[in-house]
């Protein structure tokens, strides 16, 4: 294994779990999350030798992950998107405990439109600033603010009153 592969493998071992968690919150499914992470690292490998500043790798990889998710989340044929398996119009079940509440939250999160969901995950899971989130989402900080605000409002609407977070 050459230096490039060694460095890449070490970086993967160090970061893949965290990235997988981010992907899990974005797509709500571990298997899809792993696919997203794998696609992200395949894209990263292509440019590995060109990423001069290793200190900026984390942000770069996060950007690839979120943009890959957004690309795949687009719907319809002209947008080359995927069928929504989740019915969408059925109500979420009320919950009986903390673990169930988390499951309900995750399901509610998957009903938030993809860009709003990405804004929520970047701001409140990755703890990115508005400016950093805007760079990842390729939009203005005002748009990040409004996307996160609308996403949060929708999440509130989707969650049953019985859920305590």
């Amino acid at each position, binding site marked *: 294994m050459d230096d490039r*592969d060694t460095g890449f*493998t070490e970086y993967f071992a160090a970061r893949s779990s965290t990235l997988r968690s981010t992907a899990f919150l974005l797509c709500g499914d571990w298997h899809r999350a792993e696919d997203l992470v794998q696609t992200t690292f*395949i894209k990263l*490998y292509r440019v590995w030798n060109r990423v001069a500043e290793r200190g900026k790798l984390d942000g770069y990889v996060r950007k690839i992950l979120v943009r890959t998710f957004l690309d795949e989340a687009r719907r319809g044929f*002209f*947008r080359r998107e995927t069928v929504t398996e989740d019915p969408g*119009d059925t109500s979420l079940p009320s919950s009986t405990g*903390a673990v169930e509440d*988390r499951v309900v939250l995750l399901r509610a999160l998957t009903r938030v439109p993809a860009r709003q969901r990405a804004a929520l995950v970047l701001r409140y*899971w990755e703890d990115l600033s508005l400016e950093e989130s805007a760079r990842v989402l390729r939009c203005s900080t005002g748009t990040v603010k409004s996307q996160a605000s609308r996403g949060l409002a929708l999440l509130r609407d989707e969650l049953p009153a019985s859920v305590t977070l």
Partner: protein
Amino acid sequence: MDEFELRGALRGTVETATPPPAMHAGAVLAEAKAAQQVRRARIAGAGSAVAVALIAVGAVFLPGMGGTDQAPGPINAATGGTSSPRPTSRTSSPSRPADPAAARSSALLADLLDAVPDGYNATNVNIMLPNGHNAFSHGSELLDSGARDYWATAPIGKSGRWGGVEAHVVDGAARDLCAVVKDVISHGGANCAVADVGSKAVVLVNDRVQQWVAHRHDNGVVVVIGQRTDLGNDLPPLGQRPLTVDDMTRFATKSDIARK
């Protein structure tokens, strides 16, 4: 729930979820190297690859050029692989799911298939798009605007050439019609203009390969229909648009579709 509670809830969600075993670095490295080799080979042999693809596509569609419109078998445009032909009929419509949202998008797909002119094959031919998704599909989701979008798509073919049709029923769209069309398509939409087709007010979007017509019904529901002359993959594109603007307007203004 405020921002702080959401932050805590997201952490709790990840902590209480049971992830699968850690991903294997060696496997991902092998995938990455293989992908890079494929990419290099593609770049190096782009010219010859195009020639090979044309020959392959010709071989697949040669029977279709003899005058029959039998659907090809599943075609994976991403890999170029094909499987055995699956003859289907245009009258075959998707089964109606029990879920209301899926039922509505399924009904939209059936309506869309009904709108395809005679002479075109618009069955479930299972053509895969470069991203691995089936071009024949339907679904629903919330748009960023908060409106609910029910959509359906189908590839349509004639004499071995393929394009596509797509329809949306947007419930709760508050903005102007051009904005709604832009909301449901990914590219283009800049050439959007209000037009009167017959006695119906619609908006018409004309881009190079795609064309859209949208109409807002009295109940506020917006029906959008689009067509394009290619599938964005290696399959030969249609020589002309299958639907006329009148055909599309008839679909977009059909009150049954807005009420379903």
